[in-house]
């Protein structure tokens, strides 16, 4: 909402300057967004008069003018066709910043003649969009008069109106709050009724009281329409409105002055003598009209709108012809023009929700719609009509009928009990009861002081529903700056930390992965539906109905797609070796339990070449990172089963696996991603990844104390024995390792694979696996015979999984 200081001063007696007003507004809750001060911009410019204008010696289109200015006689080069001796115009001195050109004037020769300033057009001063010459002003203006005064320019404040305060959409409402805040005295002029001289020949019938409970109107006959006087045009232009004609301008004036929208119909264009207020109609079917066809209205903006039954329609012709959308916009068919002679003025109250919904459905807003949707003062129906009548009579003449009123406005806000002690209890402010009563009264609340008080909100404050609302009124007018700063009772930091085990694991995983060289990314929770489908998602129930972009229309079933696409973008920028991770949500369904937290990591293994030769196998490096991470999370890594060949179909079937605690409790899938999926996402492979479902990782059992069990630090040296087994190539080496480790769980502490060999000396289809078994003697040094016995157990255990000691 924009307004000017002069308009405010019609309602508020104050000496405050614009900056003070803006500050007071901000601190009273009227959030100022912009203060535009054209006076400051126009400060360097003054009135000047051309004394003589001669053809420029070196240019046909330029003139060299001698100009009488505030700085004395100046020689100025001017290219405007209308520059002539005797012309009164605006002068800009050297050094002035010309807003319309965006330049600061410097003294420089124009085709050999130095110009000591500039004569300005309206466009150059940003007073008009375009100009075809320099300003041509009244001859009686004195040279040196400030331009700001000539053009009536004045500062404009633009502020944000919160949705609870429709009354701030009128100057009177703003002034009331500012007066309460101590900025001046409220002096909104009273409205004097204008008696009608004849009964209104036009009547009103309300068929939809739930949409429009009250509708008042009157005929004014014999008006003379036309352009508004300058003061009115200037007032509207200053706040960005376009003057149309006197009748329309009056409705805009009242809308902005009192937050009281009105509508004016050209009575000559009305069909019949009754205006009907009803819901929109849908045809039941007739000749040439299919059943279900909505009626249409061509509105004043020239566009055609299909009206539905949830919208409020104003109709004439016995209710048949729509001539307006109630509270939103009038129809073109009955609009006022310069020739209009008789007008019917409407002043009604339209339901906020209906008006808001109509605006949303039709994506149609207007000053009226904006106000009715927030809630116009229902008590302003008749006074608003009287004020509009007065203004129309003043500007257009004419003769008013008596007022017709159909229906009844909604009830005024109910009184409620209020204990003034609530102010202190909720805010910590200590205010005398008298001060509380003073603030509330200034804002229009009626107070009956008893025990407790009974407070009745004014008709325009339908947002005030209870004591907390009154506390806010008192606190904001008194000033939040006076609130005390009171320490919260010290509960200390909770003795066991504030994170639950899951949150603590997220934090540990983040730091662990960053330490392992992965960069944390945060990516959208949404993806493209077809991409979601590649990762087992894409359910319609997880589709975003109104996505921000077509490729972000579905909740993600995995964090991998986003990481793959991020890695691909990095590769496109010449950085193909990404290692990324994200800890965040995935969505399996739309219920609260359908959301899981995943820890996803992705590596694009493109390590740059190194002089020392090949590096660690990237896939096993990733597996190592994953195992270390699971260990850091306290996952039961020793009991995890590694299952290969059963990953879901976005994984490389031969180069991926999952870790599980039984087939129904998969903790993580990892490995290489399927080339088909990478291709679909425009990503160059290979890419390696893992995705841990954190919720599936069992939490370590809680213990009564934090004490660790006794450490078992064997005093004897461990020894190692090497074995080589021949086993079918297709068999999982992990099974062999596990079998050997299980041969003697007391003595064998580790089994390390140090070679896998296929080729000469090993039969076709077989592989040789060389292992180092770490043996930890417990109570005494092992004898040769005992070591021999253990070796036999190892060979036997390997035999059970089909491995034969290599001869």
């Amino acid at each position, binding site marked *: 909402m924009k307004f000017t200081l002069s308009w405010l001063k019609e309602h508020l007696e104050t000496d405050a300057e614009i900056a003070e007003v803006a500050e007071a507004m901000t601190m009273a809750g009227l959030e100022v967004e912009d203060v535009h001060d054209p006076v400051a911009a126009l400060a360097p410019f003054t009135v000047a008069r051309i004394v003589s204008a001669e053809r420029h010696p070196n240019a046909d289109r330029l003139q060299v003018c001698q100009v009488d200015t505030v700085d004395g006689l100046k020689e100025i080069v001017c290219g405007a066709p209308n520059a002539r001796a005797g012309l009164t115009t605006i002068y800009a001195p050297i050094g002035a910043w010309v807003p319309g050109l965006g330049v600061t004037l410097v003294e420089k020769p124009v085709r050999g003649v130095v110009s000591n300033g500039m004569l300005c057009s309206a466009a150059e001063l940003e007073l008009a969009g375009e100009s075809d010459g320099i300003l041509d002003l009244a001859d009686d203006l004195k040279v040196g008069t400030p331009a700001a005064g000539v053009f009536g320019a004045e500062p404009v404040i633009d502020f944000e109106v919160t949705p609870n305060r429709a009354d701030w959409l009128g100057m009177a409402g703003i002034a009331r709050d500012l007066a309460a805040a101590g900025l001046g005295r409220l002096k909104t002029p009273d409205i004097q009724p204008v008696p009608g001289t004849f009964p209104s020949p036009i009547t009103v019938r309300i068929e939809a009281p739930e949409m429009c409970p009250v509708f008042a109107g009157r005929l004014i006959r014999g008006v003379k329409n036309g352009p508004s006087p300058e003061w009115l045009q200037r007032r509207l232009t200053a706040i960005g409105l376009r003057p149309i004609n006197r009748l329309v301008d009056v409705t805009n004036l009242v809308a902005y002055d009192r937050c009281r929208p009105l509508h004016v119909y050209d009575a000559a264009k009305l069909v019949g003598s009754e205006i009907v207020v009803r819901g929109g109609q849908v045809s039941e079917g007739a000749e040439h009209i299919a059943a279900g066809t909505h009626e249409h209205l061509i509105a004043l903006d020239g566009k055609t709108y299909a009206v539905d039954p949830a919208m409020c329609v104003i109709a004439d012709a016995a209710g048949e012809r729509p001539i307006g959308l109630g509270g939103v916009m009038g129809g073109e068919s009955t609009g006022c023009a310069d020739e209009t002679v008789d007008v019917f003025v409407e002043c009604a109250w339209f339901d906020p929700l209906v008006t808001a919904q109509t605006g949303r459905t039709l994506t149609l807003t207007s000053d009226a719609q904006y106000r009715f949707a927030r809630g116009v003062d229902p008590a302003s129906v008749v006074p608003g009509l009287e004020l509009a009548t007065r203004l129309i009579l003043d500007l257009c003449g004419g003769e008013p009928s008596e007022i017709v009123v159909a229906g009844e406005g909604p009830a005024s806000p109910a009184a409620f009990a209020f204990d003034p002690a609530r102010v202190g209890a909720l805010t910590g402010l200590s205010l005398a009861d008298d001060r509380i009563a003073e603030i509330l009264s200034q804002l229009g609340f009626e107070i009956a002081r008893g025990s407790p008080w009974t407070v009745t909100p004014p008709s325009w404050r339908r947002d005030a529903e209870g004591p907390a609302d009154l506390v806010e009124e008192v606190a904001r007018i008194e000033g939040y700056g006076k609130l005390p700063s009171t320490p919260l009772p010290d509960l200390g930091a909770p003795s066991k930390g504030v994170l639950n085990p899951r949150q603590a694991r997220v934090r540990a995983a983040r730091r662990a992965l960053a330490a392992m060289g992965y*960069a944390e990314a945060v990516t959208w929770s949404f993806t493209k539906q077809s991409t979601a489908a590649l990762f087992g998602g894409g359910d319609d129930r997880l589709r975003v109905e109104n996505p921000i972009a077509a490729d972000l229309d579905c909740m993600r079933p995995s964090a991998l797609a986003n990481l793959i696409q991020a890695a691909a973008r990095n590769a496109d920028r010449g950085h193909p070796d990404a290692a990324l991770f994200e800890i965040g949500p995935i969505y399996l369904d739309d219920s609260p339990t359908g959301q899981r937290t995943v820890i996803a990591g992705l590596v694009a293994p493109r390590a740059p070449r190194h002089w020392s030769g090949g590096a660690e196998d990237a896939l096993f490096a990733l597996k190592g990172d994953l195992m270390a991470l699971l260990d850091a999370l306290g996952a039961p890594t020793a009991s995890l089963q590694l299952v290969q060949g059963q990953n879901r179909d976005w994984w490389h079937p031969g180069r991926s696996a999952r870790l599980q605690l039984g087939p129904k409790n998969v903790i993580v899938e990892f490995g290489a991603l399927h080339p088909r999926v990478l291709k679909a996402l425009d990503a160059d492979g290979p890419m390696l990844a893992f995705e841990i479902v954190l919720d599936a990782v069992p939490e370590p059992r809680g213990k009564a104390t934090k004490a660790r069990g006794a450490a078992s630090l064997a005093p004897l040296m461990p020894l190692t024995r090497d074995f080589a087994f021949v086993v079918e190539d297709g068999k999982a080496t992990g099974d062999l390792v596990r079998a050997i480790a299980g041969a003697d769980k007391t003595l064998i502490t580790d089994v390390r694979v140090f070679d896998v060999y296929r080729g000469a000396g090993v039969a076709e289809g077989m592989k040789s696996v060389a292992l180092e078994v770490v043996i930890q003697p417990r109570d005494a040094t092992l004898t040769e015979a005992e070591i021999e016995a253990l070796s036999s157990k190892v060979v036997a255990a390997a035999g059970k999984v089909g491995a034969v000691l290599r001869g």
Partner: protein
Amino acid sequence: MTDLAQLELDLINAIGGAETAAAVEELRVSALGKSGSISGLLKGMGAMSPDERRERGPVINGLRDRVQAALAARKAELEAAELDARLKAEHVDLTLPPRPRRKGSVHPTMQVMDEMIALFADMGFAVAEGPDIEDDFHNFTALNFPPKHPAREMHDTFFLTPDPGTGERKVLRTHTSPVQVRTMMTQKPPIRIIAPGRTFRKDSDATHTPMFHQVEGLVIDRGVHMGHLKWTLETFVARFFEVDDIDARFRPHHFPFTEPSAEMDIRCDRSGGELKLNQGDSWMEILGCGMVHPNVLRNCGIDPDEYQGFAFGMGVDRLAMLKYGIPDLRPMFEGDTRWLAHYGFSAFAAPNPASGLS
């Protein structure tokens, strides 16, 4: 005597001239071996008369000791030289680069989230969480947004496809306030929580992304008032920006779920692209807050005549940008490795009271 002196001289010279460990060993055998020259002299002592032995013994033993010492010294010398030579041959060019190591990082939003959690933990706030996909009740109705009210439009809500059976339309939560609702409905006061998490609004420009992060806070108890709110936020903001004191102002605002409501501004100077706190003439809004609306308390089963409290909410990404001088919001969510390396944090920069926040 001349014989012994000559022998000693010859041996010492020979030892000094030996060039290899093997030559030294050869000399040792020739002098001290089974049939060595000195061994022979030592053996000859057995046949001497006691007087002769008393006289010759020390001389021969002295000779043996000196030769032994000379042998050991030469041996050590040669070994040292050999080691020097070997080590010299083992020279490597250490100007060669090591294998590059990937440098990981923590995302600035997450770092700041951790910082906030640490600061609020210190003030006794627990951490509560809730789902991103919410129902209308938890995101709006319980928070005193009446159905169809224009206040809902302020939130540019994302909707999921309606349930074909019930017609219910889930929303992506527009704030983490639904977590406050869930907390109040399941816990008895006193309540002191923060709710960090992802939030969603249909908005995309230089300063808005369709997904962002919030931390909201909620304190419910008997007698908690706006003065407590003011202290809590002033204290938090000063600690967050790591300054002793913060020049802040509270300004009335409107939120459906709080009454009275406020926004908090901090005084700052942002000229030159750097945030200088407590300086300059401009105020920057950093968060919204207020006393929990009695309707919200009632909707969550808490008696507003007995309990009251405050709530606040702030944008984590935005505060990360302000604190760490990140100029643009959008790259936050693009996963550009260069950006992450530049604006990310070390794994070891976890906030703690001893070393600070980052």
